């Protein structure tokens, strides 16, 4: 915090990030049920602005060059433990950027077809983003619950977007599971409040050493119940059976956006557990880490087997999310900076790749399934034509070289699909030279230092899960691209390819700028392992003297 009376502009970023999507959603609802084009333009503009703000926040937080960099904002200008606080450290900034990028990809993809399938798609998507940004930035436990609910309520609507029997059935299960998880969340919050008398996360962490010995059982019970709620969201085994049906049933852009929802559960666990149960917390030190590690390993194994067993590509993508969740939880449960570095790098790459995979699922299904009618081409959006097509659409000029090709050329759309799928598969399976490999390598290298049983088991399960994922994705690839194609080549719109290309391009950038990304991840992990810095930064925040109050008091 600077001492100058005027708040630095960059600290307002925190509240603007939450208010921007909320305001956009309200505006869209006021526009009524029609005006799809206006809403689409608004949505793209707002999501792009949100992503740019998130990137600015990340650059600003990282540029502060301290061991743990913080931006603290008091929305109501109340003193710290009483008012709500928004805090951004490196982890929050990273999560916000991930949420923004996934949101932008979903919006762009939906512009092709999906946003026409229901009236309030754009508003729901903005509300979902508002909930995500808020959950990542808040430093208050009950406020976290409220943003969780905003995010979940929007996700219920998005899951049902498009309608149909399968979606409604999956939606019913999804809502029931999440309502029960929310109730567990409330019980956990209530118990923690009863034990510590505060809801500010930094204040809870600061008060924990003062909790009397006979209350430790209650404290641990409350934390465990709270953890159950987060882990249900993060899809740890055996709380993950809701995920594949729900994500398979969801429309492609909604499923792509939901990829970040499991990471919210992961984020909440990391945030609270690193704050409240660090190594110097006496008999609460690393409370529950064994459950995280072994649960994470079981999740990796379950997800990998599920990937191998899936016949439907959407289910396979769902299980790949479970696998990546398990990897992250097990790595974080071991409480080591080097391991956390690899895990955070892997977090970024697996989020982007899984998001791209969910978008590709629909495009690939369309390529295979001739029963699915191709998208209408009469609304003036550019199509990528096949090079060898005999009758090009009248609105697109083919150049002479392409027409002169002899024999059956590889259609450009199919080439794009194949390439994108290959990159996606490499990232998810963690094979070189893509970003998944860098993240996994960093984790594996960290696991080899001072190994014990849990580390060896995690090491083995990471390697085997990579192999199983590669096998499963290879099988799908062979079935999709190497079998005989009957019927016309798939038609893809440029607007459908753009988000996939952007997401995979981001994964490639992670490799090219690997050193900078790993450095960021390392400093994030170091910040997480020094929770006193976070606590001090939050508790040191002071309300700004306001001109109105000064005038009144005089």
């Amino acid at each position, binding site marked *: 915090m600077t001492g100058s009376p005027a708040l630095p502009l960059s600290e307002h970023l925190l509240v603007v990030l939450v208010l921007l999507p909320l305001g956009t959603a309200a505006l869209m609802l006021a526009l009524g049920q029609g005006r799809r084009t206006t809403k689409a333009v608004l949505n793209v503009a707002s999501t792009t602005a949100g992503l740019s703000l998130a990137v600015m926040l990340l650059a600003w937080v990282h540029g502060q060059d301290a061991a743990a960099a913080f931006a603290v904002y008091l929305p109501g200008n109340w003193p710290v433990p009483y008012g709500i606080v928004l805090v951004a450290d490196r982890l929050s900034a990273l999560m916000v950027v991930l949420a923004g990028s996934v949101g932008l990809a979903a919006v762009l993809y939906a512009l092709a077809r999906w946003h026409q399938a229901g009236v309030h798609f754009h508003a729901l998507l903005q509300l979902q983003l508002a909930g995500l940004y808020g959950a990542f930035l808040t430093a208050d436990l009950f406020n976290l619950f409220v943003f969780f*609910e905003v995010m979940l309520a929007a996700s*219920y609507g998005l899951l049902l977007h498009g309608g149909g029997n399968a979606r409604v059935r999956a939606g019913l299960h999804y*809502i029931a599971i999440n309502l*029960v998880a*929310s*109730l567990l969340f*409330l019980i956990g919050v209530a*118990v923690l409040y009863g034990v510590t008398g505060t809801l500010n996360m930094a204040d809870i962490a600061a008060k924990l050493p003062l909790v009397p010995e006979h209350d430790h059982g209650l404290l641990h019970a409350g934390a465990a119940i709270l953890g159950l709620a987060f882990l249900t969201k993060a899809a740890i085994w055996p709380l993950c059976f809701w995920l594949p049906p729900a994500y398979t049933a969801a429309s492609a852009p909604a499923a792509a956006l939901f990829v970040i929802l499991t990471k919210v559960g992961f984020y909440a666990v990391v945030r609270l557990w690193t704050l409240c149960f660090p190594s110097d917390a006496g008999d609460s030190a690393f409370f529950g880490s064994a459950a995280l590690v072994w649960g994470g390993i079981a999740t990796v194994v379950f997800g990998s087997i599920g990937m191998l067993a899936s016949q439907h590509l959407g289910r396979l993508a769902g299980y790949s999310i479970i696998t990546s969740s398990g990897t992250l939880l097990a790595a974080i449960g071991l409480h080591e900076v080097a391991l956390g570095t690899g895990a955070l790098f892997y977090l970024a790459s697996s989020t982007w790749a899984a998001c791209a995979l969910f978008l590709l699922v629909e495009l690939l299904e369309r390529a295979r399934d001739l029963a699915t009618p191709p998208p209408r081409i009469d609304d003036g959006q550019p199509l990528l034509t096949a090079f060898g097509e005999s009758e090009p659409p009248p609105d697109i000029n083919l150049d002479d070289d392409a027409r002169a090709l002899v024999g059956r050329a590889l259609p450009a759309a199919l080439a794009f699909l194949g390439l994108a799928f290959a990159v996606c598969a490499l990232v998810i399976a963690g094979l070189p030279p893509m970003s998944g490999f860098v993240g996994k390598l960093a984790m594996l290298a960290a696991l080899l230092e001072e190994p014990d049983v849990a580390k060896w088991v995690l090491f083995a399960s990471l390697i085997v899960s990579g192999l199983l994922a590669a096998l499963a994705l290879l099988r799908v690839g062979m079935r999709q691209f190497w079998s005989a194609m009957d019927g016309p080549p798939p038609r893809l719109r440029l607007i459908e390819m753009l988000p996939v290309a952007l997401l995979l391009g981001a994964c490639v950038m992670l490799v090219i700028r690997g050193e900078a990304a790993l450095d960021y991840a390392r400093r994030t992990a170091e910040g997480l392992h020094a929770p006193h810095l976070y606590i001090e930064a939050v508790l040191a925040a002071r309300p700004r003297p306001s001109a109105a109050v000064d005038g009144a008091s005089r």
Partner: protein
Amino acid sequence: MEVVIALAIGVLAGSGVWLVLRPRTFQVLIGLTLLSYAVNLFIFSVGSLTIGKEPIFRPGLAATLENYTDPLPQSLVLTAIVIGFATTALFLVVLLALRGLSGGDHVDGQEERP
């Protein structure tokens, strides 16, 4: 009073859990409602159970929890009630949609095969 509240929470939560695990959608809905009542009572009881004390500051009375009841759990309960009510209403809509689409009230959209 603690025993009465604890019994009430226990009975509500127990019935709620049992109903949530039933195969009929309406039973699940009622179960979720009962569970949320139980949780709301629980949050309320976290702020220490007292009779005849209000959370409003009065001059001449020291501002400690001896003299007042804790206002925070009450506001938490209020928020939780609002959110729970809204999400339960949404669940009801999905329940009706599933009934319309599948023609039955089984949570899986079809009866179990014997």
